[in-house]
């Protein structure tokens, strides 16, 4: 289906040379390298449909990042261009004669790890999508046909171009949040399971026919799990085949779900601009890390059994925690006040909660902006988790 450019104005295109498209050329990619400078905004579009190339080179050329767009009508030509010049992004059709898009993606991913890739196809096929992601594609999308789809596609491409570095955002849609990722899947009315990992945490979002039907992270399911996953700012994702047998626990529209989750995040951000922790942490500490405002943790279960996260000098803090807790416990015994429930503190650097239960001592470092009342609330929640462990 021909697509008209309704969003951005025309751009000069370098036409491909059909003579370069040798059908028997081997899929061997040489040279090239990660883009830098102006090449960080250079896009290569590969499609055997010249009309598509003309249209999308105009559309993408008018993106806010003003990329330089090159085109190729066959894989061999595309690979030669990749070999000769550094590109930031490769957009490739999947179904092409001779060398198809999957082969190109595999080769490009292997040879140019920094190259972002978008697989684009006219067929909405689950197997295609799974294969595209398995081939290392950063984004799989059907060819947009409506103005809103074209605009969304342009935004995704622009995001891939403007966001550099492997540590920001989700692999595949750098600078784009999970909101964009889920919107793309739902707008395409896809079915699949979005598996998202962040450090040792793993979450899953089930999408069926363009609707978010369930989510799961650790022991939590449904909307609550979705909100937790939604708060992750970085991570990796992969799309697994759909699971039509998954019971539906989320019944609202995906738009309202995204809106509610975004509002929840905003409310959280108003109190604390720290992101939800999860990476570089043992499983033992993870329940405590989910308590609002927690920035650092130290769990001392005895000699040689000290787990910490976000604590620069854990040995010293473990000793301080032990001394403070035993000091106040001794004081409690002297005063006959009953058991010590918690020691809580606010400070200019950090708030602190100290707890002791069943021979284990916990220190939690909290956001310094938290008031004494919030520190106490956090302490009560932490004590509940410590009691469960």
């Amino acid at each position, binding site marked *: 289906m021909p697509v008209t450019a309704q969003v951005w104005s025309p751009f000069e295109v370098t036409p491909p040379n059909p003579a370069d498209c040798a059908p028997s050329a081997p899929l061997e990619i040489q040279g090239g390298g990660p883009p830098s400078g102006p090449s960080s905004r250079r896009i290569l579009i590969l499609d055997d449909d010249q009309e598509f190339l003309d249209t999308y080179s105009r559309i993408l050329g008018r993106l806010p990042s003003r990329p330089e767009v090159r085109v190729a009508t066959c894989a061999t030509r595309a690979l030669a261009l990749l070999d000769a010049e550094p590109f930031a992004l490769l957009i490739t059709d999947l179904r092409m004669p001779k060398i198809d898009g999957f082969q190109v993606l595999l080769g490009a991913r292997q040879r140019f790890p920094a190259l972002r890739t978008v697989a684009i196809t006219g067929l909405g096929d689950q197997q295609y999508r799974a294969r595209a992601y398995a081939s290392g594609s950063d984004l799989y999308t059907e060819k947009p046909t409506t103005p809103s789809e074209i605009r969304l596609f342009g935004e995704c491409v622009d995001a891939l171009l403007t966001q550099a570095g492997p540590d920001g955002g989700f692999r595949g849609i750098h600078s784009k949040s999970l909101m964009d990722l889920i919107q793309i899947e739902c707008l395409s009315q896809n079915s699949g399971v979005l598996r998202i990992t962040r450090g040792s945490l793993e979450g899953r979002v089930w999408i069926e026919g363009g609707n978010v039907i369930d989510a799961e992270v650790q022991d939590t399911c449904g909307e609550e799990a979705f909100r937790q996953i939604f708060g992750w700012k970085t991570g990796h994702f992969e799309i697994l085949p759909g699971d039509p047998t998954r019971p539906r626990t989320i019944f609202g529209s995906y738009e309202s779900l995204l809106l509610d989750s975004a509002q929840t995040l905003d409310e959280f951000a108003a109190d604390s601009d720290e992101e939800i922790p999860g990476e570089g942490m043992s499983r033992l500490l993870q329940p405590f890390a989910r308590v609002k405002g927690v920035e650092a943790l130290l769990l001392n279960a005895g000699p040689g059994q000290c787990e910490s996260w976000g604590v620069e000098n854990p040995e010293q803090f473990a000793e*301080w925690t032990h001394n403070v807790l035993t000091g106040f416990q001794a004081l409690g015994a002297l005063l006959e006040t*009953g058991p010590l*429930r*918690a020691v809580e503190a*606010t400070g200019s650097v950090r708030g*602190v909660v100290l707890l002791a239960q069943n021979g284990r001592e916990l220190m939690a470092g909290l956001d310094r902006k938290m008031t004494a009342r919030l520190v106490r609330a956090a302490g009560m929640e932490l004590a509940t988790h410590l009691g469960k462990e």
Partner: protein
Amino acid sequence: MKRISKKAINPVRFPRGSFTVSSAGTIVVSTLPGAFPMERMEAIGRAVLSALGAARGLGTPLTELAADFAGLEIRARDLSGGAIIFITPQEY
């Protein structure tokens, strides 16, 4: 019939009030009843100053610290090495 006598239970009643302790651990001023033993105030002061001082030494200065017991809350505010300490019985 043997007479059953019960030992009278005298629950510990904590006063409500505050006192100030210097960085040396000396009680400077107190609003607690005179019956409240000085050595208990000093013991509270030592525990508080020790916790605040060690935290400061670790680069995590604390402005306010609370020890939450089943029957009593001790809340202390740092005063440049000393502390003002509030004693509040827990209410149920």
